[in-house]
């Protein structure tokens, strides 16, 4: 049985239907890229998994029906979300952001600051005063502090300087190699996604149109559905 199972997932925003049948399965420790052009339902799928919006269809994590849980309980069951647009707790310091999110497990302040040394250097600085890249690192660190079994990153490198993007991709590669956390990635950089992901799932108009091993994703398929 797969770790995360999403089958025929549908969701609506008011009267507009956003998801028409998303299928996605992930094994433990697996890195999956959720791909598709803008507006195809990637972020909506993530919000549905995290129970931030109402949805219908099969949605299970380790056999547990996520529809039965409120958003915060989904997080407690091991789903760590790094939301789009970073959004740290601006009035708290780096350390406080991490402490506020901490749950028992392997991840702690020392491990997070070892993964992102910049955060260690700015431990007592307010999150609002950090650069965009540092805020993104903090958002990832904050999600890791919850000791997730599934880490979801929604456009984690969007709008960041190349050097910062490299640091974040390097951290994700380390996470893949050194931990058993499953990672679901949404990103526009196909090259980086291909380097780190085991699998890819492509959405078009709120529906899964292709799923398979990253190695099987041919340029034709990515050109057709992702545009790169």
């Amino acid at each position, binding site marked *: 049985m797969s770790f995360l199972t999403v089958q025929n997932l549908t969701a609506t925003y008011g009267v507009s239907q956003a998801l028409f049948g998303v299928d996605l399965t992930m094994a433990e420790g697996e890195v999956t890229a959720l791909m598709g052009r803008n507006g195809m339902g990637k972020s909506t799928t993530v919000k549905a998994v995290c129970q931030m919006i109402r949805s219908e269809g099969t949605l299970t994590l380790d056999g547990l029906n996520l529809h039965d849980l409120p958003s915060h309980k989904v*997080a407690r069951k091991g789903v760590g979300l790094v939301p789009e647009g970073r959004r740290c707790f601006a009035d708290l310091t780096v350390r*406080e952001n991490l402490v506020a999110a901490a749950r028992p497990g392997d991840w702690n302040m020392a491990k997070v600051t070892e993964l992102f040394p910049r955060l260690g250097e700015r431990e007592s600085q307010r999150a609002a005063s950090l650069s965009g890249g540092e805020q993104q690192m903090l958002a990832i660190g904050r*999600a890791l502090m919850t000791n997730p079994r599934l880490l979801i990153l929604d456009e984690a490198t969007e709008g960041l300087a190349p050097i910062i993007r490299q640091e974040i991709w390097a951290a994700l590669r380390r996470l893949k190699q050194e931990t058993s956390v499953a990672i679901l990635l949404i990103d526009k950089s196909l090259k980086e996604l291909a380097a780190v992901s085991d699998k890819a799932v492509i959405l078009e108009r709120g529906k899964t149109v292709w799923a398979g091993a990253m190695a099987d994703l041919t340029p034709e398929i990515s050109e057709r559905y992702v545009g790169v």
Partner: protein
Amino acid sequence: MTLDERYINGLVLIGLLALPLWALATDEPFTITLVTRAVILALAAVGLNLILGIGGMVSFGHAVFFGIGGYAMGILAYHAQTYTALDLGFFETDGTNSMPVIWLVAMIMSAIVAFFIGLLSLRTSGVYFIMITLAFGQMFFYFAISWAQYGGEDGLSIYVRNGFPGLNTLVPIQFFGICFALLCIVLFLFSRLQSSPFGLALNAARQTNARVETVGLNPMHLKLLAFVISGAITGLAGALFADLNRFVSPTMFSWQLSGELIVLIIIGGVGRLMGPVIGACVFVALEHFLGELTEFWHVYLGIILLCIVLFGRGGLIGLLTGKEGAHV
């Protein structure tokens, strides 16, 4: 020139302790009572500061807990002093004159009421939260007015101040000592709570509910717990206030008092550890000195408040430290 907030905090506490000692030395018992009043109001506002300053919940009905604390003292002491039984249906008691017992009852009753008020009012936010807490305040106010058994609109007088083991509470400096010690304990707990994971998560919930949920915390639970703790602290202050005046009346439930508690926090600095303490000292000083000059002293208080809101948004502590925000 700006000052470190820790020095300001230390100076305020030293000043608050030194003034009554000086008054004792110069035989000015009224000054001691005045400072005691400031200390008790500060304690009530520290309770409110927990939810207002850290949690961002503007409760316009915190006088409910102040009043419950006051009536807890009034009712227990009244039955003890008149040797009449207090029959609660399932439980009968002769009341008590013991301050620690009264404090405990005041805090428990306030916490229970805060739980139910919080459960209902925290479903709302912003102006609706302000209005619903105000509505609860008014409910309790009018209930107290119609509660003829305990004095109704006239309130309830207690002949002798309640007792504390080993102390003579009728001696102003000794009663001040009790209140000051309680304020210090609560301030210490407040500072620990502020930097604890709970306090940080509460602060985070003020900033964004949804993000708090993504890290596995229920913002409603955080806010409700803070509301209950806050109510209990303000209830404790209410019991002390009633003991200070040896009198309890429905005005302890009034919306004006709820507003004054907010004003104290704004004057000193929202979310600051010593904000409510400085606010209470300024308020009581103005009330006393300007009150001697004119009965319309609130006009001057209004002008000062206006200046602070317009020109010093971090309150007096913000002005002195040069940091508008309570944080870092």
